[in-house]
């Protein structure tokens, strides 16, 4: 079913489209859909023969009155020529076409143009614009070469060298923009990148090449005899102790402090970077509600930390384990979350000694660390890097040394010949291999040793422009990608890393362009764990999930927000999207679905009963549930909130921009923000009513604000709310280091999440609103397909690409057919297959 017909056969489409960057309403879209543009009758290669008389008539009759050389608008039609080859002219005409097509122009206040004249004019313009754009694409390609994004570079090094762990930190962050970081036009390059890449490659090689003595580790953290542990047990609360005590062989902790149980201070040094299995046996202590036992990693040198795992525990002992990549400077610690104070409200800090405290805690019996988990030593990844070399322990036993059977130069040559084709994503010539290997000669001559010399050549491969740039090479005299360029595009789309052996072999044998084989590869790649990178990275950028930590809600107003909840929030959206792919479910589920993904923690947050345990799983939602669909995910509520407050403007703008792909124009220069005033009785909503009163605001805000009003029913962390939380203003204890879970809020004003969409549909809440939004499911699908193509190809949708998007929309039944089907169509479309 997924043929590459699309390249040869431009199927007839009679759908209008809405792509441009200003406001649309539901009624506009319907209007557009009804409008027949007939442009499908033109193949893009045909020259449009009609005289532009219809266009002249339309402009004279309906436009020129406002848009002449005396215009106060931004458009003076008398100064725009018909030289469509000129990029400025071209872009101006696109805007004109889009505004006429959508019905926005001429404005409702003006007489309607003759419909035949308008249709002819649009047909002429569409034909011209497509022709010019298509020819430009044929001549220069649709997208430019691009460099790998910093995340892609990290994944690339991971896969090439068999390592793990964060590497992107050595590269400068990608500049924030409103598109994906893979779009060539947005990418930057400077000496900061070059130096960062050199550093990253060094770190990666350090971790890949492990020649120390074989670490043999199965260690239990010895809390029983640890003096460090004893110190915190004995220390006073004032000095950071007193939150943990010993009960026979067990430790009972009442705070998830990062210092008490830390692995390094309790006798565990991580010998080398690698994968370790960490197993914890523990239970809840004096539980009255849900208790989470968690495992966290911290690195004080790099200054970062992460939540490794979180487990639900009750009074029964539970042994759980997780496999994680650890580096020598890392330490981890068992922590505790969701701990309630004592029934009388007492907290550990003023309930000493700790063993008398009646609040919830976590009991830790045993922590076992096994690893590094290597099947052989030196590890397989080191062996793979140097094919043909065997390894023997040195005489003093301090390290392993290479046992070479040929000259060092020849062994380095083998290493280069093995790595370069994988890294460069294509066959590499003998001459190239020789040139790279030669780089090791000065080092060999200076007697720096085999490994140090080999590293010069290997490092050069890892920082080469050949690995760094996706150059989208084409077959001769055409814009179609070569087999290897197609393999690269595919693997960077779905895996964010270079093609694996299977893909490269298919490309080598010229089979990948076969549509059946290509489909089979897409299925294989989506089934592979590496496709999680696509899901995570795409959602991070499309839905701004990567900005979830940009603001933090007040811990007293929203005490339930913690790392464990944050993680479950992100997991919901990722599992949900992944499920749409796996089960090929309709794209319209993004607007509303009768299921979602929850674990106990998130289900409690949502007030949904009977979900046990920390695993995320599919949960069917009741008829009357407010959940279902992206906009009801707590993750989305969080990224569209400003810390402790929500603003309908930000959320409304998110719906228009991210979900519908119709971003509102930025506010005109000189318009200030509304200054929040939380003192009095005014709600944000009342403040926003000023928007409706000021004409220059209302034009846009009547479209931006309503979706935001509907989403007011979700607080900054995605709770469903009927009333706003307001601080009680109680005196907050804030002695150094003695902050603790403490609620400080009352329920204040009623939340009003009713409203009326710009096209006049009333809604009484989120469910009504989602019903209305279902009218726009085609636009949501159009937006998602456009985003996928942009993300996969590194180029925004251009005018001549619109037909192809419409064709995919047709083939995917306008959002009714599944997401997986849509991804297959994306991979087959012209934009994906050509430069």
């Amino acid at each position: 079913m997924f043929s590459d017909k699309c390249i040869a056969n431009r199927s007839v489409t009679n759908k209008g489209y809405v792509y441009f960057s200003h406001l649309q309403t539901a009624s506009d879209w319907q209007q557009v859909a009804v409008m027949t543009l007939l442009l499908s009758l033109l193949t893009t290669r045909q020259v449009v023969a009609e005289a532009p008389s219809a266009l002249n008539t339309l402009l004279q009759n309906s436009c020129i009155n406002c848009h002449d050389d005396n215009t106060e608008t931004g458009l003076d039609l008398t100064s725009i020529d018909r030289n469509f080859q000129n990029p400025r002219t071209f872009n101006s005409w696109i805007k004109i076409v889009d505004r006429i097509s959508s019905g926005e122009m001429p404005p409702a206040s003006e007489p309607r143009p003759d419909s035949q004249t308008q249709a002819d004019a649009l047909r002429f313009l569409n034909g011209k614009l497509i022709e010019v754009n298509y020819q430009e694409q044929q001549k220069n390609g649709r997208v430019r070469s691009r460099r790998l994004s910093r995340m892609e570079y990290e994944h690339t090094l991971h896969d090439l060298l068999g390592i793990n762990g964060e590497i992107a930190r050595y590269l400068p962050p990608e500049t924030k923009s409103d598109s994906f970081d893979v779009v060539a036009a947005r990418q930057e390059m400077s000496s900061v990148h070059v130096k960062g890449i050199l550093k990253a490659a060094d770190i990666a090689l350090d971790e890949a090449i492990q020649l120390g003595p074989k670490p043999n580790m199965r260690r239990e953290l010895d809390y029983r005899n640890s003096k460090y542990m004893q110190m915190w047990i004995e220390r006073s609360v004032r000095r950071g102790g007193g939150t943990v005590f010993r009960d026979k062989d067990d430790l009972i902790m009442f705070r998830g402090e990062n210092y008490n149980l830390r692995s390094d201070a309790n006798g565990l040094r991580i010998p080398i970077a690698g994968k370790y299995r960490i197993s914890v046996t523990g239970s809840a202590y004096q539980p009255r509600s849900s208790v989470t036992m968690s495992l966290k990693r911290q690195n004080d040198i790099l200054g970062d930390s992460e939540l490794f795992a979180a487990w639900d525990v009750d009074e029964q002992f539970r042994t759980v384990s997780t496999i994680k990549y650890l580096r020598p400077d890392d330490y981890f610690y068992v922590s505790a979350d969701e701990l309630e104070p004592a029934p009388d409200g007492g907290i550990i800090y003023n309930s000493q000694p700790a063993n008398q405290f009646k609040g919830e805690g976590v009991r830790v019996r045993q922590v076992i660390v096994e690893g590094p988990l290597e099947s052989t030593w030196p590890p397989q990844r080191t062996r793979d890097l140097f094919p043909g070399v065997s390894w023997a322990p040195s005489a003093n036993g301090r390290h392993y040394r290479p046992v070479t059977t040929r000259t060092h130069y020849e062994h380095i040559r083998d290493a280069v010949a093995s790595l370069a084709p994988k890294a460069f994503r294509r066959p590499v010539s003998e001459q190239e291999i020789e040139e790279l290997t030669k780089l090791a000669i000065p080092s060999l001559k200076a007697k720096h040793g085999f490994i140090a010399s080999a590293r010069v050549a290997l490092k050069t491969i890892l920082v080469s422009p050949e690995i760094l740039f996706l150059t989208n090479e084409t077959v001769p005299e055409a814009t179609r990608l070569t087999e290897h360029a197609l393999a690269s595009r595919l693997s960077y789309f779905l895996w964010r890393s270079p093609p694996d052996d299977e893909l490269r072999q298919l490309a080598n044998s010229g089979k990948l362009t076969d549509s059946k084989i290509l489909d089979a590869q897409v299925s294989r790649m989506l089934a592979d764990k590496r496709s999680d990178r696509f899901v995570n990275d795409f959602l991070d950028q499309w839905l701004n999930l990567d900005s979830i930590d940009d603001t933090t809600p007040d811990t007293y107003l929203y005490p339930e927000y913690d790392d464990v909840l944050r993680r479950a929030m992100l997991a919901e959206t990722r599992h949900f999207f992944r499920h749409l792919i796996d089960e090929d479910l309709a794209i319209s589920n993004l607007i509303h679905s009768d299921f979602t993904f929850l674990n106990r923690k998130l289900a409690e947050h949502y007030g949904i009963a009977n979900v046990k345990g920390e695993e995320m799983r599919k949960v069917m939602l009741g008829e009357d549930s407010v959940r279902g669909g992206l906009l009801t995910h707590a993750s989305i509520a969080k990224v569209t909130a400003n810390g402790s407050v929500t603003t309908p403007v930000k959320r409304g703008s998110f719906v228009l921009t991210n979900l519908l792909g119709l971003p509102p124009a930025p506010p005109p220069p000189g318009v200030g923000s509304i200054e929040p005033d939380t003192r009095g009785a005014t709600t944000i909503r009342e403040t926003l009513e000023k928007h409706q009163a000021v004409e220059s605001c209302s034009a846009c805000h009547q479209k931006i604000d309503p979706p935001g009003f509907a989403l007011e029913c979700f607080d900054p962390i995605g709770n469903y709310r009927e009333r706003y939380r307001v601080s009680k203003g109680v005196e907050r204890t804030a002695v150094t280091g003695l902050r603790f879970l403490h609620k400080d809020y009352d329920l204040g004003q009623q939340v009003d999440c009713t409203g009326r969409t710009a096209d006049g549909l009333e809604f009484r809440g989120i469910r009504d609103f989602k019903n209305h939004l279902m009218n726009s499911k085609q636009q949501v699908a159009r937006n998602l397909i456009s985003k996928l193509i942009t993300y996969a190809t590194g180029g925004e949708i251009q005018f001549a690409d619109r037909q192809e998007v419409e064709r995919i929309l047709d083939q995917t039944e306008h959002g009714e057919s599944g997401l997986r089907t849509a991804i297959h169509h994306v991979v087959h479309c012209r934009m994906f297959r050509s430069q």
Partner: protein
Amino acid sequence: MHRPISRRTALRASGVALSLPLLDVMNPTFGFEPKDPPKRMVLISSALGLLPEALFPKTTGTDYESTEYLELLKEHREDFTLYSGLSHPDQTGKEPHDTEMTFLTAAINPGLGGFKNSISVDQVAAMHLSQATRFRSITLGSNTRESQSYDMNGVMLPADYRPSKIFSKLFLAGSPEERLSQKQQLAEGRSILDTLGDQTKKLNRRVSGADRKQLNEYFDAIRTAEQELASSGQWLDRPKPTVEAEIPTDITDSSELIGKIRELMNLIPLILQTDSSRVVSLMIQDHSAVPNIDGVRREHHPLSHHGQDPSRIAELKIIESQILSTFSDLLTKLGQNTERGSRLLDHTAVLFGSNLGNANAHDPKNLPIILAGGGYKHGRYVAHDPNNNTPLSNLFVTLLQRMEVEAERFATSTGSLNVI
């Protein structure tokens, strides 16, 4: 060619510590004509703004009435000028805090459609000074690698935020083995970059014409990186200056907002005094933690959105006052250090400001701007039109000209600010 005597050599011979004024013989231009001490520039921004009503006086000129915040700087009253009514035009961005990217660059519409940042004012000065000092510039951040300095390609220069690391980079010589291995690494790095240049040229021949722009940018980046490595290689042979100061210990607890700022501020006089660099930028960031200051119970960023709640404003003022006090102490130190008979402060323009004029509303207009030192005539409050702001870049042009950069304009400037 005249080779300046290294300060350390001189010190070894004389046995004096570096807190003494720099000697003219160490001036690289010695032998031609005696010159004034070099001009320097320190740019500090506090990303969450300063409460305007606590900062700006109601009266202007030299006899302005002091305000709550200005009281904290009163001992330096004759050493600084306060400006209002300055800002960068067209700062509507994608996210309300995106102006953090443009405070020193003035690029318009941060984060919006096709946004690319441009060079920051400190880097213009740094490029001009080139190899005059061991480090062209020092970029500091109070909590993360985020900075406000951007290179000529609009790429952020990662900030140093760990004082111990900066100290060792500036002042610790390292063992001979370490220096040897550093040298080897530099040589290896340069040889690899050389190869990459060749590879890029070859790749360039394979790609279509329209694609060459990307690769040429990369090629330029490689060349610049190579020059930078070469320059650090040259400095590797020259001994680092020694200072009579303890190696600072890093504070890792992000709630220690003031402690972290203070540690970085303490480094600034050392950097300038040893002429390790003449251009320093420091970004005071949101630490996403409740600052450990008596009376403060909420995080800095939420407090900046005070919503006119008096208890929040009171807490916010505590934090901002403490930040201003660290700035005051920096001015004190720069005033105490002398160089060839004049104060370090007199040759160092220190700008303290923010990318937000009113953080409660994310308003990027009417920025709080304090300019201290640099040999300007101070002691004034200069108010520009609050409704029709003067480009902050005009002040940047003035600063650049004082650094002897032949700059007629910078980014959105419309002239230079008339500063005496």
